[in-house]
């Protein structure tokens, strides 16, 4: 698969569209983070550290896919606003719901 992409001329001007090589690098980073995430399963880490670390990695991957694969970092901010609004609203509303159900304390 890699040879095919390398044979094709890279798109000029990476200002608007990243090159295929760039996308592959993004995917490699994502793969590494995923491997780290999975690695936590095999190592004994106390929950108080583990959960923030996992969530942090998750947010990182989320952001990375959205910014690069979904092209948000190059596109109009309007798209980002819609997506972020949905995300923030969902987080807030459902966060309150989980709080009412005492999820954070009783799990």
């Amino acid at each position, binding site marked *: 698969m890699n040879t095919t992409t390398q044979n094709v001329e890279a798109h000029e001007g990476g200002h608007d569209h990243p090159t295929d090589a760039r*996308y592959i690098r993004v995917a490699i980073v994502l793969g590494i983070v995923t491997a780290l995430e999975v690695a936590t399963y095999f190592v004994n880490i106390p929950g108080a550290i583990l959960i923030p670390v996992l969530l942090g990695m998750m947010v990182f*991957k*989320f952001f990375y896919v959205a910014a690069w694969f979904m092209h948000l970092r190059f596109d109009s901010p309007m*798209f980002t606003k*819609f997506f972020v609004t*949905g995300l923030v609203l969902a987080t807030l509303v459902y966060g309150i719901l989980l709080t009412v159900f005492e999820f954070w304390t009783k799990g």
Partner: protein
Amino acid sequence: MADAAAVDHGHGTGTGLSNNKLLMWVFLGSECLLFGGLISTYLIYRSRYADGPAPGDIFDIPFTSVSSFVLLMSSLTMVLSLSALQRGDIRNNRVWLLATALLGSLFIGGQVYEFTTFLREGLGYTTSPFSSAFFTLTGFHGIHVSLGIVMLVSLLIASFRGTLTKERSETVEIVGLYWHFVDVVWIFIFTVIYLVPSPTS
């Protein structure tokens, strides 16, 4: 008078953004609330496993890691297919579209295997609130992936009919946005449902 037609025809929009692309982003915003509801329901019910298996007992993290990785890579192939079409490279557009559809199908296959395994191990849809919530959440996600595969195949067919040209690359972009979103939801699910330690019985 002629100007009316010219202004009318202008594919120019108020924001300069494509209607179709904006529509997809608006839709994805609403999907956040849909999946948020299903995820919250799961989180509330994950410790309520009645007499059945608990999540910590039954999840197979290594297996699910592989299928998560497969889905993640399908986002790469998706964006490569778009990038190819934007260059006018029809052949590689097709290759990467097919790759994405195949990786997506592999993911679904993995889901099916996982579900049937759980069933054999005593976790059915009706076993407990946990099981209902788990299968509903992952089921909805799986349906979204499947619909995405249908769209990808449709794009492939269009490509072979010669109608998926460089000028129409936005269509691939929009399908791609949907696909990446579905992947991003799984990134969330994989961490929050599988990796974060779950109750055991």
